[in-house]
């Protein structure tokens, strides 16, 4: 059993799913956000794997972009979480339901 690209794709899918599950399960905004970062990493993995498999450069370029975007998200995300934490002194998203209906 050789290590074909399919395995990498499956790994990516698994990571992505774990990320999604993390977002759904965890209550802490910070952890949820980390789960999202995990999803992005799954994507990066997929990009790189495919890129290598097909011998194309685009996928790797894309991976770099994804990392940049992820970094940008981190800065903004952390800032927002901090702001929320300041007003509510909690990062529990379940308490974050003033607006509904």
């Amino acid at each position: 059993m050789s290590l074909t690209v399919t395995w990498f794709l499956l790994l990516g899918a698994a990571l992505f799913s774990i990320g999604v599950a993390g977002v759904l399960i965890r209550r802490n905004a910070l952890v949820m956000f980390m789960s999202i970062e995990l999803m992005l990493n799954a994507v990066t993995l997929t990009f790189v794997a495919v890129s290598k498999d097909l011998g194309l450069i685009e996928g790797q370029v894309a991976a770099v972009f994804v990392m940049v975007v992820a970094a940008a998200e981190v800065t903004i995300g952390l800032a927002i979480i901090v702001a929320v934490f300041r007003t509510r002194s909690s990062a529990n998203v379940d308490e974050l339901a003033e607006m509904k209906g």
Partner: protein
Amino acid sequence: MQNASFLPVAFEVIQLAGALLVLLVGVIAGKQRRVWAPIAGVTFLASAGAGVLQWRAVSEGSGGFFFSTQELEIMRSPMVVMDGLSAFAAIVLGLVGFVALLGSWDLVASLGKRSSEFVALTLLAVAGLHMMTVTPNLVVIFIGLETASISFYVLAGFIRGSRKSDESALKYFLLGSLASAMFLYGVALTFAATGSLSIYGVNSIRDFFSITIITEPGILLAGLALMFVGLFFKISAAPFHQWAPDVYQGAPSGAVGLMAAGVKIAGFAALARIFIGGFVSQTDVWVPIVAVVAAISMIVGTTMALVQTDLKRLLAYSGVAHSGYLLAAMVGGIRGIPPMWFYVSTYAFMIVGAFTIVSVVCGPASTAAPIDSFKGLAKRSPEMGWLLAIIMFGMSGMPFFAGFVGKVFAFVVAGEAGYMWLVVIGTLTTVVGFAFYLRVVSGIFSSGDDDDREIDPSLSARFAIVISAVATVLFGIVPWPLLDVVREALPF
């Protein structure tokens, strides 16, 4: 780099330059907001002007693909495309951005030192939005999407210390990032399936090699589905809409207009670009699904809007319904793009006008706008009352208001495509729409008892509202000039 030219990316360049300039001036000039007011305004207008130039270039035949990475033309992995779609998007985004900025100027004025950041973010967001429409490259689309989204996350939470504003920002951020990630995974899967990041990749590769490297068609389909999820989320189509009401409500009223309008414009342009202009051979797959999502959006949007007591939430839900109608136009494929453009561009003005009125009546930084606070508006300010009524009529799809033409044309193309059931759902939900829009109108003209303070909107806000209302009426009565234009606003 062949075909390198400034014009195809002029919009983004101008916006970024403007943003940088505003930030720079902000640092230098401090609180003197008057200084960057003209800068921001000029930036938007210049961007729109660039859009006009792009439009002229396209109609003269000098549109096309730019910044290709490959020598092989047939592989077509260009980074930028200048066509009717992107040029028109530039014009609309520039103008809407301008009007939205006017409308949010009261908010900007109240922000003090941070106002330059607000303006710069606005400019950046619009740059990102247009980036979504101007490229056939899926990663660039993603980058545009993130640029806009990240700016909007910040704008949503711009009111410091406001619990609702914070909540709004966090919800938007978490859910938006989740959706973005899903979109991006879709891009990755598509890449895996086609070996190309271009929306044309799947076809051009097949054409060139007469074979397919798609080993598993399911992967491509899953990729497309995830891209749809991401865009459905952005345009707040049901059931991907749940963030919208909460975010709209919690975000400062002065900022929501641009968020609601801009995302719709760019989201639908991107949908059109990717799925109508790009993955043509998958049309049979996504059209029925989009039709179903359209129907769900119409139903969910209208019925939910019906039970709202807050105008901002109501507008958010009505936005869900409007997405449904716009998706109905998408069902018609390439034929649906002109109606989609007509609809989304007029809707953009209406929603900007509506939120501007909300910010005038309830305060620019308000995070709540109970419908009751609009009771007797016509007495407090006949002008505002009538303008809001006009915008409500326009949104409800009354004839001789702009909403009508777009909506009915959307129905027509859906009908042409054989989706009569969707048309019936559309017309029926329109009626439900009358119920809640007219509830607002009733309130406007009823005798409000508790609050009779006169409302005197600032010049900029007034200007923004009047432009929106005039556009609503003008394009309702004389739609053909715009219709003639949008007929050409197609992707290559």
